[in-house]
């Protein structure tokens, strides 16, 4: 059976199937369809959805709700993502599982509200102070808007961090035929919640007991991810965006500060292989490797087909986990080629990552920032 569906509806369905029960957002094209649909759907399943006064409040409400036991989603586009910035840092610091959809439009600033772009690729990676790792997934078609939304919710719980779903105007607002049976349904894990140690409420008034037991965070070993301490459960919960120790008490002690910050790095970077998601279509005889992601991957699939039809050997790698960079898969794909072509709707943001890994190879970009899609023909041309 087939349906005609756009990326927004697929993301909404993916979120509902992943158990999302909280949404806060602020209207912005092309992300508004997600807001409007969830405002309608979430109350039906006991969830809460709200249009907040601005994007800062949207992500703030999501963070609060998550710590009170909800699975939260928010969705915006470049201008709104700019307003999320400081709270993205808070979610990283306080280790808040959260899914953030960035439906990219052409920037900078107001840019083109109904114009496609892929200009936020490095912005999601470095979009908040401090420089800590985040996870970002990029669906390459409507079907993947569904499955990667589920995956994003799963990764958010696994690593206790904000996970970006990077889509764009074209994916979210262009409907395509999807074979309903072909939706992949990656499992979404349940949240691990910190359990309290039996003690009377009276005991809670004692500082040493109330705060020290059980600590909401553990940084030893550095990549360890702790269960989430949730408000209204059987523990007292401390949460802070300031540099803190395992009890969430503010500290400046260098050893404790280092342990926290190393933990925030290690829990993600040392598990990059778990996050890595690519579509490798490698041809042993190919001299050229194409790399693309998101909506641009559609043109690449088409171009590869046609080139092979013409008898040309080409390889293609579609990156679905943009951050952390799927280095293992990329290094394998780079082994036997002389040339890499990176196609993206920006001035070459992801190409930088490929250049880093493809030392000694010729790396070139196919780029557009005119609000139009990169065509299969342009990619075929680049293969010559």
């Amino acid at each position: 059976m087939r349906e005609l569906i756009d990326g927004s509806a697929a993301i909404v369905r993916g979120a509902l199937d992943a158990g999302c029960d909280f949404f806060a957002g602020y209207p912005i094209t092309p992300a508004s369809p997600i807001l409007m649909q969830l405002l309608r759907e979430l109350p039906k399943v006991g969830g809460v959805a709200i249009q907040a006064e601005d994007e800062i409040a949207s992500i703030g409400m999501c963070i609060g709700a998550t710590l009170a036991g909800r699975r939260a989603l928010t969705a915006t586009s470049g201008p709104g993502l700019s307003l999320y910035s400081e709270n993205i840092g808070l979610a990283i610091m306080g280790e808040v599982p959260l899914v953030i959809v960035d439906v990219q439009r052409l920037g900078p600033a107001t840019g083109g509200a109904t114009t496609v772009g892929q200009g936020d690729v490095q912005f999601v990676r470095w979009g908040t102070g401090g420089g800590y790792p985040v996870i970002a997934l990029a669906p390459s078609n409507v079907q993947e808007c569904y499955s990667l939304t589920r995956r994003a919710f799963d990764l958010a719980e696994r690593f206790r961090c904000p996970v970006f779903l990077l889509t764009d105007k074209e994916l979210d607002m262009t409907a395509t035929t999807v074979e309903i049976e072909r939706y992949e349904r990656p499992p979404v894990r349940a949240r691990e919640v910190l359990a309290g140690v039996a003690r009377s409420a009276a005991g809670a008034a004692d500082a040493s007991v109330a705060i020290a037991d059980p600590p909401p965070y553990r940084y030893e070993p550095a990549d360890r991810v702790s269960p989430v301490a949730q408000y209204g459960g059987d523990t007292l919960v401390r949460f802070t965006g300031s540099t803190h120790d395992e009890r969430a008490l503010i500290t400046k002690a260098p050893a404790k500060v280092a342990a926290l910050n190393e933990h925030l790095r290690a829990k993600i970077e040392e598990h990059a292989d778990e996050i890595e998601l690519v579509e490798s279509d490698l041809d042993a005889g190919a001299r050229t490797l194409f790399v693309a992601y998101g909506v641009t991957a559609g043109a690449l699939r088409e171009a590869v087909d046609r080139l092979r039809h013409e008898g040309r050997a080409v390889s293609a790698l579609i990156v679905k986990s943009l951050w952390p960079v799927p280095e293992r898969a990329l290094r394998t794909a780079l082994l036997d080629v002389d040339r890499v072509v990176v196609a993206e709707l920006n001035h070459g943001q992801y190409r930088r990552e490929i250049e880093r890994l493809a030392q000694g190879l010729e790396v070139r970009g196919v780029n557009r920032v005119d609000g139009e899609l990169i065509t299969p023909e342009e990619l075929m041309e680049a293969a010559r």
Partner: protein
Amino acid sequence: MTTATTVTPLATYRNRTPYPFCPGCGHGAILDHLNAALVKLALDPRHVVIVSDIGCSGLSDQYFATSAFHGLHGRSITYATGIKLARPDLKVIVVMGDGGTGIGGAHLLGAARRNIGITVLVFNNFNFGMTGGQHSTTTPPGAVTTTTPGGNLERPLDICATVAVNGAGYVWRGTSFDKDLAERIADAVRAECFALLDIWELCTAYFVPSNHASKKTLATTLDDLGLKGGLLERGEHPEYAAAYRAEAERVRGKPVAGPRAIEPAFRSTLDRPFRLVVAGSAGGKVRSAARLVAEAAMLADLWVAQRDDYPITVKTGHSISERVLSPREVRYTGISRPDVLLAVSEEGLAKCARQLAAMNAGDRVYVLAGIEPPPTRAQVTTIDPASAELKLGGGRVVLFALSQVLRDLGFLPLVALEAAARRYPEYAEENLATIRAALAVAR
């Protein structure tokens, strides 16, 4: 979710850590009253969340044996709102400075207007203590701060009047010296609405020395500004989290929107991707007619991409619908060169100039009678809605034209278009009549 417990009232909700504030700072006094209020309320400390803002006042949560949230400057109300919406049974108490009410002004208004059930204690010391005594939104006129060396020139924000006039259910103003402050805080928490207490106090490090401020000047400033103290508002409007739940109850359990499956029932002879562009104007039913073509294609076992372009001001300007129809999955959804361009308005046609320029001899352009056929290599055909045996309203012209185009092209059976039209019962009769009228016109 909640663990039921019998709560033993606590002797104190403070932990043993001493406050970090400067000697004489009003913050400690207010926190002692907050503690006394919690003792009066006898709440389970796990069900109390103190959400602190940033500033010296923002340090407060660490000294309480309740749950706590310490987030970003000015945003405490947003986290508190999220917590309350998720768990309306929790008591959520925001502790913020006057600085927070400035940078987070939009949240103050949003929360008041929703009358969300959180309690906000404003530790109002007329300046930014933590960052070195700069002026805030509440600094009185003429007051000297590190950023108003010649005296403040801005008018202070009347926090209470602002939230009161915008829907806050409970508004009170007083000072850290008030004997009944604990009872006030307890009363505000019990009120289960957006309750704000504007608590005036002294920053002994900055505001006091530069303005000779004292307990006494708090009272004179109040008079000078023409403001009032005490309970200023006690409204009974519905609280948001409760109102949301009551509203949600009405749709609870209703099925969420699922896939609207389209089962192939016809066959198409199309053997390659086909790109159709319909160029018209707002209000012309371009999108809905083109949608029927997309669904007809799916009913005929084809794969489709459906892309609509129109200005943000939806009721005016162009309306372009692009449809890719293909015997296999459509991977690339763009159309740089259409196989067919149907122009139903000059404005739409103008928008498609680049696509038109790319069209070749084998491609086809259809224009409605009256539209100047553009210079093109493609074969141009004129469609005349006046040839229809029935009078077509403006909204039916596009479907009329599309039916004729599909008949010309021949790869998509028109019964599929009729079947697509039947999927929308409300418009089915009119749409079917339009399709039939188109087919009745001789070729």
